């Protein structure tokens, strides 16, 4: 591998842990648990910061002579209660398996002329990256120059804080998600979801099994796409209806939140620290 480490060691932005580790709180507060699980108020709070960061980036790009078509992540009200896909999306697209063509990617928008110069203004030189190594050993690489980095620094104070807030809570959340699926309380809710779907004449082991089942069935399905999509949307809406009725996603989230309190002391201390730093960033944008 041709990675040249240009600087290592005592500089901010590297290392497995921040050098000053605060003692772990006996119990994480709600805001910290929201941040770890990406739920509750954090979904909206993070969206507001994201919007401000994109706006700063856009202004920086304009000052550099570029019209940048970047966008913030849209708010997703479902995230507050542990559901990932918006009901609005399901209502329009079902599982997205019967679309006329691939979804239009936002990367198609905006000018493509002078792309290299625009990219450099936004993200700096392609070989000028910083690496954050998480306690679990995951390496995250991100640009350290350009308008995006400058906007992050303006809001978060430094790039290291931005990177840790961007990556470490979601890394723990992914781990908590795996744990939650093995919890007997989740398994019980999943059985209730199956029963609910069966009452509507659908037989699936899990929400994921629906997509797998439909994908397989569509290999030989000759119905017109519009007809197929309408049927797919009906199943998707029953799926989300049963999820809400038996509180499947909500239970998964509750288990993740509960287990967040049992993360090891170093992780809890770091999450409490990052939660405080996020609140500081938030105050900067109002």
């Amino acid at each position, binding site marked *: 591998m041709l990675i040249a480490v240009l600087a290592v060691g005592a500089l901010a932005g590297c290392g497995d842990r921040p050098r000053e580790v605060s003692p772990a709180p006996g119990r994480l507060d709600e805001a910290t648990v929201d941040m770890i699980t990406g739920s509750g108020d954090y979904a909206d709070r993070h969206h507001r910061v994201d919007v401000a960061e994109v706006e700063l980036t856009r202004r920086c790009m304009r000052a550099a002579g570029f019209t940048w078509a970047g966008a913030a992540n849209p708010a997703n009200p479902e995230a507050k209660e542990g559901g990932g896909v918006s009901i609005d999306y399901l209502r329009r697209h079902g599982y997205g398996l019967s679309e006329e063509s691939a979804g239009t990617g936002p990367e198609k928008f905006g000018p493509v002329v002078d792309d290299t110069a625009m990219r450099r203004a936004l993200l700096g030189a392609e070989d000028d990256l910083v690496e954050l190594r998480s306690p679990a050993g995951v390496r995250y690489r991100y640009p350290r120059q350009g308008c995006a980095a400058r906007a992050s620094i303006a809001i978060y104070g430094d790039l290291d804080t931005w990177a840790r807030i961007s990556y470490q809570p979601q890394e723990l959340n*992914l781990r908590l998600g795996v744990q939650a699926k093995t919890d007997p309380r989740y398994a019980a809710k999943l059985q209730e979801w199956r029963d609910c779907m069966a009452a509507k004449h659908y037989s699936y082991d899990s929400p994921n099994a629906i997509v797998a089942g439909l994908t397989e069935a569509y290999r030989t399905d000759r119905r017109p796409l519009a007809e197929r999509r309408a049927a797919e949307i009906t199943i998707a809406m029953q799926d989300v209806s049963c999820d809400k009725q038996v509180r499947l996603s909500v239970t998964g989230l509750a288990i993740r939140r509960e287990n967040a309190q049992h993360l090891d002391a170093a992780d809890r201390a770091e999450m409490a620290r990052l939660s405080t730093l996020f609140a500081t960033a938030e105050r900067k944008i109002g």
Partner: protein
Amino acid sequence: MKRTVRRAAIVLAALTITTLGLAVPAQAAVAAPTALADCPSSYACLWVNTNYSGTRWQGMNAIATLPSSINNRASSAYNHGVNCEVHWYEGSNYSGGQLNQPRGNSIPDLGPLLWGDLISSMNWC
């Protein structure tokens, strides 16, 4: 929203200073591996092997189920887009666990994240 933008303008003052030439604080730096350059601009890319090697998949559009060549087979990931954060999902149709990757960010090994051979769908913003 207006209030957020107004306050953002205040923060812009600090941003402008750095734009005009003050150095970004020192960070540990790494050079981009050459394999990253194989991923075209404006695409998000996945590789079957770690360190951006092996079969590569690249996508510009949201995709509810990745093709079998990469579905549940990815070991490294790169967002080479300029407009949006990319979202990778554990399940088809943007379901299950979600891994967000900002613009220009890369992860050479998804294994320690317990996300090796796990990604099934992708969308942007």
